[in-house]
């Protein structure tokens, strides 16, 4: 069953068409990868789904409901969680206090029966899931001094705290070492095991193709190919547009 349906999205910035009639269907509890060269419209697509950019035409249906025109926080509260490519956490706050903010959202409060509860403990639980060692000082450190890898995990933790149904991860692996990526992949696999859906925008094809169920290739704002990772790897057009340069 499809949980998210993107139909015919077009968005132009000035004269440039960042997205040109793009349609995507995301099946529930699968991992969809979105790849494409730089400037192919991947982030704009994510921005459109999460309400940060309003498309010129097209619709985005989440569980059959159109979300176009809703403000980002409403969309987040419906269950579409989004991790940013540029990690900018709340730098002045300690890591675990960063998680208090999503815990105060209407979505989380509704699920916990309107009660706040001990948010600090919940925040620490969530951080532990993404690999912040609970007994160390890491969760208590101010976000501005955390290394890049932890900031990426913090983004994931925010979505976990929100109990999102779709995790949209915009270049989560960028800037991480292979060891760090290998340690994050189990977290994503666990999210899938919990019955959630994941959409990943990635440049790290090797790692992505290992875990993706389906991959979409964008180029110049157009969807040029869609299929399981194996097919994508062998496709001539994709190689020409993207892999030919990369591999």
């Amino acid at each position, binding site marked *: 069953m499809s949980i998210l349906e993107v139909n015919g999205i077009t968005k132009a910035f000035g004269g440039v068409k960042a997205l040109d009639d793009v349609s995507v269907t995301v099946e529930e509890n699968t991992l969809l990868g979105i790849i494409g060269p730089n400037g192919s419209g991947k982030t704009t697509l994510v921005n459109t789904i999460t309400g940060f950019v309003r498309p010129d035409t097209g619709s985005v249906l989440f569980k059959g409901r159109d979300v176009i025109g809703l403000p980002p926080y409403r969309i987040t*509260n419906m269950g579409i969680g989004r991790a940013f490519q540029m990690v900018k956490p709340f730098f002045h*706050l300690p890591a675990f*206090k960063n998680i208090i*903010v999503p815990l105060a959202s209407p979505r989380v409060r509704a699920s916990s029966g309107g009660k706040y509860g001990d948010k600090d403990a919940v925040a620490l639980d969530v951080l532990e899931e993404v690999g912040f060692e609970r007994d160390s000082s890491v969760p208590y450190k101010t976000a501005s001094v955390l290394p890049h890898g932890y900031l990426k995990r913090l983004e994931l933790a925010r979505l976990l705290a929100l109990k999102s149904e779709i995790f949209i991860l915009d270049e989560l692996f960028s800037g991480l070492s292979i060891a760090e990526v290998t340690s994050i992949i189990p977290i994503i696999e666990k999210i899938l095991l919990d019955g959630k859906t994941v959409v990943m925008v990635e440049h790290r094809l090797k790692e992505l193709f290992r875990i993706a169920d389906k991959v979409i290739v964008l180029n110049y704002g157009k969807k040029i190919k869609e299929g399981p990772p194996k097919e994508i790897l062998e496709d001539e057009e994709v190689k020409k547009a993207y892999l030919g340069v990369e591999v």
Partner: protein
Amino acid sequence: MKENYRKERIARSIKARSDDIYALTSYREMWYLLFPRFIPIVGIAIVSYFLPLYWKKVAITTCIFAMLAVSWDFLSNCGLLSLGQALFFGIGSYTAGGLNHYLHLPIYVTIPVATVMGGFISTMILLPVVRLRGIYFAMVTLILPLMLMRLVEATKILGGTEGITGLSPFPNVWFEITLILAAMWASLFGLRRFIASDYGLIFVSMRDNDRATMASGINIYAFKAQALFIGSSICAFCGAFMTHSYQFTGMPVFAMEFSILPIAAAAIGGIGTLAGPLVGAMILVPLSEVLREFGTLRIVFYGLILVICVVALPEGIFHYASRKYNEMERWVKIE
């Protein structure tokens, strides 16, 4: 061989032992924490009560500007850069003055009502622009009080250019000082507690990255409106207080001074700490009183202080002092 030294900083604070939660184990530690809070509260109270009448008025003005500065800092902590504290101040002042003059309400009604209504009106005026960020918001807030001034001038409502005079005064100066001191400390410590609470964290998070706050499912516009209400209520209280203190309200309440001085105080004291701006106001306002004989030249001094402080001492006095208090510094030889 030349000997090299480097500066080493050692945290003196008991907080250094544990990052978040800490237990007090001795009177010495309690005193260590209480000292920087206790001394100013008692000190300022004593000083204000025993000053001659003229300087008592200066002390009151100082407290008013300190509150404006604290409120400014609170707003800037929430990502709302305001250049128009005069707007909130003026609305509070006119509300109190109007209620007192036209409806003949007594002082203990006008001040609370003006506080809440002033906050409400200011929030409603700024609601359309709450979506603006940073400098855009700042520009609008700079323009608004000046335009309201013109509005009063043009429509001749609320006393027009003459203003409203003969408002009811405070019963006595002791009452006046006690009230403003209580309000000042309440707003300072109240806001400090507030932004440290779970609910207040959301406000602070908006300054760091409002997009991430939005992506956390928080309606940032609702929260910014709340922040505006809190901040402008404090200013409106100041306006109402000043109105009764001088028994006058008029166009000068929208003057630039009420916008600039709080920012100057915050810039000197240290932005982002809430206590810093208060310290800044405690320095600036009495200083400007001393400089009064220079006439308009004293505003030039403000400007100079502003520029110098921002460029040369960007962290502000409070950050500096608290670092000195909480850390020991020493020079160590580099092996």
